[in-house]
């Protein structure tokens, strides 16, 4: 019952200004920050999906990323640190016809708000989440984040982080999110496409966006320029091709009780074959027959049908 409305008219030329609040500009973001690209991509995705601004809500947490909701001309809710998915859950249940996009930083989504994110993914209400992963706490001045890579320097890990970074992809899979994609601010066309894909189906759809905080993380890690960090995104990621990957190895299923257990493929790399350590971008997984459980919260909802057991 909560599938986003189909495009009403063919959307053509995109004018970013129409999706911004001029009275809130200039933004508080540093010049060159990837957040501007992400805001623009979200606006484009909404535009090309043909969604009316009145029918879109943006719910953000706290952080540089959290500030995004103030700049976007939707129904916007700038919440508390980490809690955006919980606010969004209440809003979505009250107004299922709204397209609700949550926007969170890496600390917001995976540290203080980790539990809310996990449960939002598990519930699979029709929410879209954009998680901006810049490997650092931007707003508070460059502290360690749950995604800081091992060895990465931050103001609270001066000799380099030694904690294992969070694997959002595995987390999303385990929690049962319907859709997971990864994009970078260097591949903005792909980023827009991934947000469009996230907007176009039911269930909880998460897009992880690799972004640059050259001003803090970059400076502490020998990439003080935005351009350098963007170039690294190109070198360190590779386009995901789910079909090829499916063929190459059986998909990992962590919690899907409905799926019969399949023996894991031999995970040992073939002798002499170099494994690709680059992060994949694009659609990483999408559950077939994607489910939206929102209807179950309303008394008049039909009992779950077969297609929900994906």
């Amino acid at each position, binding site marked *: 019952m909560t599938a986003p409305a189909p495009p009403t008219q063919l959307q053509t030329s995109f004018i970013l200004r129409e999706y911004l609040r001029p009275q809130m500009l200039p933004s508080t973001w540093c010049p060159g920050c990837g957040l501007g690209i992400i805001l623009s991509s979200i606006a484009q995705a909404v535009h090309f999906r043909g969604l009316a601004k009145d029918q879109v809500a943006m719910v953000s947490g706290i952080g540089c990323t959290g500030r995004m909701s103030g700049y976007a001309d939707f*129904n916007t809710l*700038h919440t*508390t640190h980490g*809690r955006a998915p919980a606010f969004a859950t*209440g809003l979505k249940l009250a*107004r299922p016809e709204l397209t609700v996009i949550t926007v969170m930083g890496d600390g917001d989504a995976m540290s203080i708000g980790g539990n809310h994110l996990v*449960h939002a993914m598990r519930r699979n209400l029709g929410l879209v989440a954009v998680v901006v992963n810049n490997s650092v706490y931007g707003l508070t001045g460059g502290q360690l984040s749950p995604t800081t890579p091992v060895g990465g320097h931050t103001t609270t890990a001066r000799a380099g982080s030694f904690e294992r970074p969070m694997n959002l992809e595995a987390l999303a899979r385990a929690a049962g999110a319907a859709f997971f994609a990864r994009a970078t601010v260097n591949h903005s066309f792909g980023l827009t496409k991934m947000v469009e894909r996230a907007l176009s189906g039911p269930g909880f759809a998460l897009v992880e966006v690799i972004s640059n905080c050259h001003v803090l993380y970059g400076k502490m890690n020998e990439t003080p320029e935005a351009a350098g960090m963007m170039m690294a995104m190109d070198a360190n990621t590779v386009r995901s091709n789910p079909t090829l990957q499916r063929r190459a190895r059986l998909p990992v299923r962590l919690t899907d009780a409905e799926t019969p257990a399949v023996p894991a493929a031999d995970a040992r790399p073939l002798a002499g074959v170099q494994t690709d350590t680059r992060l994949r971008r694009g659609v990483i997984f999408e559950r077939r027959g994607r489910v939206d459980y929102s209807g179950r919260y309303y008394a008049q909802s039909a009992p779950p049908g077969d297609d929900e057991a994906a």
Partner: protein
Amino acid sequence: MTHIAFMHGNEAAAEGAVAAGCRFYAGYPITPSSEIAEILSGRLPEVGGVFIQMEDEIASMAAIIGASLGGLKSATATSGPGFSLMQENLGFAVMSEIPCVVVNVQRVGPSTGLPTKAAQGDVMQARWGTHGDHPIIALTPSSAQETYHLAVRAFNLAERFRTPVILLMDAIVAQLKEKVEVPDPASLQIVPRAAPSVPPADYKPFPFARGEVGPLAVFGQGYRYHVTGLLHDEHGYPTEDPAVVSAWWEHMATKLDAHLDEILAWEEVQLADADLALVAYGGTARAAAHAVTLARSEGIKLGLLRPITLWPFPEEAVRRLAGQVRGFIVPELNLGQIRYEVERLSAGRVPVEGLHRADGLQITPDQIVSAARAAHARDQA
């Protein structure tokens, strides 16, 4: 039609909420409040509402704010430890002026304390639990019947003043089953969610009209605006401009104060000729009311002031009494939270004595009468 039911306070709170128009509940189970969630999980879908059990109390508070912005009257219920977890987002609701109702059924704290025993230890947490100065409303019932009415009133006040309202119960009232006259729904005064009357271009979501609140537009109905926990101007945009910040405070600080006659509620039992006054509330006030009868049969002119709105506190009533009686006794299931208020308001004019316990047991009428006898004897000496 009015009908008679036999219910405990938690049930009365749930039924009162439904009658008041509550259509969204998000919560996390905790003794002694869980019955409210259990009942509403069945009742809300019956009336077209939504129930959701969240991952914790932080999320519960967040979800009811989100749902309220979506136009549904919303509530959550919890007890001490959960109430602590709600404080961050409770402050968000104050800051962003979003109506919602939080039921806190108090038990003995701090921490896990005595989970199944009644207490009144969250009085000050209800007042000052979230950080920063802020106005707040907290209502405290003494019976299942009153719980029903105060639940309705909590939603009305939340809508009227665009503020979170706390229904501060104790386990005595929450778990005591007694007769409740359930009023005919048509006889109840219900404050509906006000809708803006101006076109979106002229709409100010957070007007700074000293002591007045404007209507809160529902998300998705054409009024696109920004809601933030940052200090903001009338349009909701964050600001650090000291002039705007002062104007905001002017509005926030006077929001309730300008309407005390509309908000304040208390009951006076045999105070007209009293020369000794009890100040008691919630479950404890039941023992206090009985103590008044017992003491009077011994010739002690005892009376009772029973605050129903704990916050704002009925200050004038206490000040007035301080000029009439020769002393106050404050029985409460904590170590003196309302006693401090009474001391502050009587400002040294008459002695204020506390009768406190936080060991999980209740204060009996006899204990109160003994305290009254002692005070009386002192006065006669």
